């Protein structure tokens, strides 16, 4: 049986950063992920926003981590060589209730220590973003808000962890945990693994994983949100636009680092996991017309997200990050929602720190936090929409991609207008050539 000091359960963005943070200590670490790739769960479908920190209650863990994470995000992304755009954001309101929400967020932001936050008039907002509707009365401008591609960030962290000696077990589902002398035996659908400490980052199933060995008073309910992706070439706002409506949260439009506009809805009830709803999509389109009337709605893709809603036994929903340590060598991040992406590094460091302290692991002087993005284009263009070459695809396979989807998430193939219909056959052939041990 393979044995490690620490095992991370779940390879979402949080598991990837927990793994990377473990490498800062002298210990052996492994990540266990049920799917064929990392970042295929909640992390796969989210709004890609690096939040400023005015949405969170002053004094909460979320507020503290978010503000700190936002300040350091540029640094983090340059270390990991992931595109990050500090594009700023405007939260817009068209009525009195909305204005009041903006004012409260402004106050919370100030209390959270944000600088540069500004409440501005509708006219000033339209000067900044001329596409905004004439109905916008006021806006909360946050220059520090940014956007990052969630799976690119998670994959980069995971690659960096592997560079630093961590191991990865994909396609491996944890089925049961047994407490034993000095640690845990993890029964998976492939092999048994021994570890001294566990970091549980199983996202929507984190309560289930904790219950494999300890009680867990937290349960997770799920709701959903729909997303639209627009073609890169349309004219679009250059900042993130939030819509605060008179009856609550509206849509969000994010100019992504890839150049597409991503638009998402407020939460709705879940039907089937990750299934979009026709009404949801229609309602986004309608709200988008109200918010940005001139925008050409050139949709190239739609998808849906699952949102964890952790709540305690008495049914009350838990608003702050839910972190449990049911035993000294076991720490769980349970159903972490927004701003989990923003705080992934913070949360990863935090739980790895708990774990290292328990293991009494000293710092690892050999840790190198730098990772390089794939940058080896050759002349053989495979993905015409995005201009991606064969050499880049081969390199993504060398770094662990084993499916067309995994290649897509590493180099961006199939993300354009034709959605892979012109290049998927070629990519499947390249995978066949290179992924059977030839690399």
């Amino acid at each position, binding site marked *: 049986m393979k044995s490690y000091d620490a095992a991370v359960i779940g390879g979402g963005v949080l598991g990837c950063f927990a793994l990377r943070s473990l490498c800062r200590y002298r210990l052996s670490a492994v990540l266990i992920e049920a799917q064929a790739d990392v970042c295929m769960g909640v992390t796969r479908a989210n709004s890609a926003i690096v939040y400023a920190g005015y949405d969170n209650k002053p004094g909460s863990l979320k507020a503290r981590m978010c503000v700190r994470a936002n300040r350091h995000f540029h640094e983090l992304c340059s270390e990991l060589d992931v595109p990050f755009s500090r594009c700023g954001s405007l939260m817009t309101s068209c009525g009195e209730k909305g204005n009041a929400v903006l004012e409260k967020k402004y106050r919370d932001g100030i209390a959270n220590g944000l600088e540069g936050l500004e409440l501005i008039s509708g006219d000033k907002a339209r000067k900044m973003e001329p596409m905004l509707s004439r109905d916008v009365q006021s806006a909360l401008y946050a220059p520090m808000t940014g956007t990052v591609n969630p799976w690119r960030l998670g994959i980069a962290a995971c690659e960096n962890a592997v560079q630093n000696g961590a191991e990865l077990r994909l396609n491996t589902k944890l089925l049961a945990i047994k407490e034993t002398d000095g640690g845990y035996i993890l029964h998976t659908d492939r092999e048994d693994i021994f570890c001294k400490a566990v970091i549980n980052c199983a996202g929507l199933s984190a309560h289930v994983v904790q219950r494999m060995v300890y009680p867990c008073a937290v349960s997770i309910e799920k709701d959903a949100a729909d997303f639209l*992706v627009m073609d890169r*070439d349309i004219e679009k706002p250059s900042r993130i636009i939030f819509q605060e409506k008179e009856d609550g949260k509206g849509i969000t439009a994010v100019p992504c680092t890839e150049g597409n506009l991503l638009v998402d809805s407020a939460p709705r009830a879940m039907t*089937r*996991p*990750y*299934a*979009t*709803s*026709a009404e*949801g*999509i*229609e309602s986004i389109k309608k709200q988008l017309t109200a918010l940005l009337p001139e925008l050409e709605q050139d*949709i*190239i*893709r*739609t*998808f849906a997200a699952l949102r964890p809603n952790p709540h305690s036994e008495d049914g009350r929903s838990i608003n702050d990050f839910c972190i449990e340590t049911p035993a000294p060598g076991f720490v769980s991040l349970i159903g972490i929602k927004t701003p989990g992406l923003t705080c992934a590094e913070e949360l990863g460091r935090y739980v790895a720190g708990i774990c290292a302290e328990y293991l009494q692991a000293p710092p690892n002087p050999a840790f190198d936090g730098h990772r390089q993005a794939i940058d080896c284009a*050759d*002349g*053989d*263009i495979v993905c*015409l*929409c995005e*201009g991606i*070459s*064969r050499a880049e695809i081969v390199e993504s396979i060398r770094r662990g991609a084993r499916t067309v989807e995994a290649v897509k998430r590493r180099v961006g193939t199939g993300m354009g*207008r*034709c*959605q*892979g*219909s*012109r290049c*998927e*056959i070629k990519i499947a052939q390249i995978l066949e050539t290179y992924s059977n041990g030839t690399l």
Partner: protein
Amino acid sequence: MEHYDILIVGGGAAGISAAKSAKGKKVLLAEREEKLGGILLQCAHRGFGGDLSGMEYAATLTAGLDNVKVSLNTTVLSINCDKTALLSQKDSGRRKISFSRLILATGAMEIAAGALPIAGDRPKGVYTAGMMQKLVNCQGFAPDGPVVILGSGDIGLIMAAAIAKMDIPVTLVEKEAALGGMARNRRRLDGLSVDMVLNSTVAEIFGERELEAVLLSSGEKLPCKTLLVAVGLECDRKLIRKLENPEWLRLCGNCERVHPMIESVINDGTQAGEWACGI
């Protein structure tokens, strides 16, 4: 920098015809695939220039290109307003060239499922009809049945016939009250067993990993393992999106407008070649 009188982007029927008629000029025909022919190369059905298959027709078409410099495995990445283009070739990498006239013959691409207002899951098993045509005719692939084809234009009809001939159950779903496409393509279905649902469209997809069924707007749920989207082609003009109709540029073939018949593509390409020589 290499200079050409005429740069032709795309070596399908339109680009080949343009190259052939551009006599006496220094021409570069750039094609991103390893063979000339474009869409023709994936058409196993007969009906090109009489009774040839697309593949056979492509072979006759490429004869007589001797005076033209053909650069295969070469993608044109960008075209600039200063009459230069960035090319990327498989073994020799990127290079910039200049030209006096440009003929764009990049064809059309299929509208993908993502752009359609279809709700539900995103499982494997959803393809564009043209991608399936390539898989079947060039890779010897057989789709898992039952197959549902959305859209009864020419490509939908051709694929319905091809799949029915493989004895795989297939249903054509068309939102209009009658089948679309050309009469001669509708006749391909004669004597074959193809189910048809008219006045309907696919509203929702079911299947978490593998496709299981589609829900039609009529309320009917069709179990299926493969969905082919055949709702139309869109001219591929990405390369010239930022150019403002310069006088040195001409479009021909399917990137100018979608042509149902090869003859008009050839005609269009020939005229474009003559235009490029004439001025």
